[in-house]
């Protein structure tokens, strides 16, 4: 039941994109094509889960014993950057098909604030390892859902008359606002 609640809360109520504003750049950049959105979402899911678990272990076994909590930001981001680059090289060599579908998005993920955001959030919420792992999955599924839905809508934008000044990013943002409004409705589920 708790796990169910965690998932519902992270995917719908506190959607990482639409309610917590994390990961907006890829959201707007990648949502023009549904296949790209799925690829990006899956890559983000992969990286978020991996990064959250690794940074959690580093926090627990290196930073906490030495009282280095204040270096959290710099240590986390360096670990994430190195991890992403390593995974990219690894996939390219060892699993080329996976590289073709996910790997091309990896270089774009280092600066995705959703990854660092989730890694820091689970520390601030003081989750244990298992809950952190589940939360990472739930949050990135929420990201995937939002970005794929958005791409589905934005594909239709191509065939719609939109005023010149609203084309591109502005219409994407307003669209995101309307989606966020729709997601607000899920707040009623948990109160």
């Amino acid at each position, binding site marked *: 039941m708790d796990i169910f609640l965690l998932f519902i809360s992270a995917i719908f109520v506190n959607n990482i994109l639409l309610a917590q504003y994390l990961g907006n750049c890829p959201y707007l950049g990648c949502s023009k094509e549904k296949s790209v959105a799925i690829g990006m979402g899956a890559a983000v899911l992969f990286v978020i889960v991996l990064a959250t678990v690794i940074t959690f272990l580093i926090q627990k076994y290196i930073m906490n014993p030495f009282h*280095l909590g204040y270096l959290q930001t710099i*240590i986390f981001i*360096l670990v994430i950057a*190195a991890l992403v*680059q390593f995974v990219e090289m690894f996939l390219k*060599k060892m699993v080329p098909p996976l590289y073709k579908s996910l790997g091309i998005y990896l270089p774009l993920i280092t600066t995705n604030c959703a990854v660092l955001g989730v890694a820091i959030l689970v520390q601030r919420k003081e989750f244990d390892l298992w809950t952190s792992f589940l939360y990472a999955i739930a949050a990135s599924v929420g990201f995937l859902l939002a970005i794929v839905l958005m791409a589905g809508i934005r594909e239709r934008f*191509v*065939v719609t*008359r939109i005023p010149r000044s609203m084309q591109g990013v502005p219409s994407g943002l307003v669209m995101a606002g309307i989606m966020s409004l729709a997601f607000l409705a899920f707040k009623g589920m948990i109160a």
Partner: protein
Amino acid sequence: MIAESVITLFGLGFVSASVLSVASRLLAVEEDPRIEVVTEALPGANCGGCGFAGCEAYATAVLKDPSVPPNRCCAGGPDVAKRVAELTGKAAGDVEPMVAFRRCVKVEGKVARKYDYAGATTCAGAKLLDGGPDACRYACIGLGDCVRACPFDAMWIEDGLVHIAPAKCTSCGTCVRTCPNGILEIIPRRARVMVFCSSKDKGKAVKDVCEAGCISCGACVKKCPAKAIRMEDDRIVIDHKACLAYGPSCEEVCVKSCPRDILRCLKPEYIAPAPETEPAHFPEESHVVDLNA
């Protein structure tokens, strides 16, 4: 505390840099070095005119797949084709010249209309609304998605129907990929006969919506002595290779057998190779397949 911080961060930098540099050595992927050379030779516009996803994809394909010709790059023209041919060891000239062709004769009144469309002026947009304003789901919608997509300015809309200027067409296939109804096709410039309908409906359904469409009677299939015509999904497919190999001795019996006048001989102006120099203004008659001929 200072010592711990310095050591931890120094160690982190050291470890990540070492892991990455070692990994970049161990996990380096060997790519065919020629791919890069061929990609360099291409214009790098990533226009997709060749039918591949970008210049690098074409370079890879042309090196690996023997059936991919070296002259597919429309943006680069003959110079690039020559260079690619040199790099790949393929002959530049042994490729059948092709041209885009519209498989539809929808003209005013021949196709019934379901409704008047007043939405966004794109075919894809109209297609979203109950399959388009025409009763025939395979008719040219005529809102010009292909015209806008054509990188060579070889198409235009007239009377709600797309027209192709063969002299300008480079058979890049962009229009074929754009058309939501799939009525465009790339055919050999030497092709002798062609079918002017792309409907996959059965005879009765076609008769209901179009005065001119193919009713899938199969007469042409039976008559063709070269067995170059077949039906796929109630849609005529012509094997131009077999047709051209058989030669003109059949006297186009298929055209004569067609009860709906939907199989026609192509005008020589259309099928002739593009002239070397482009005329300033293309004469009205020669740039389109004349439907009333």
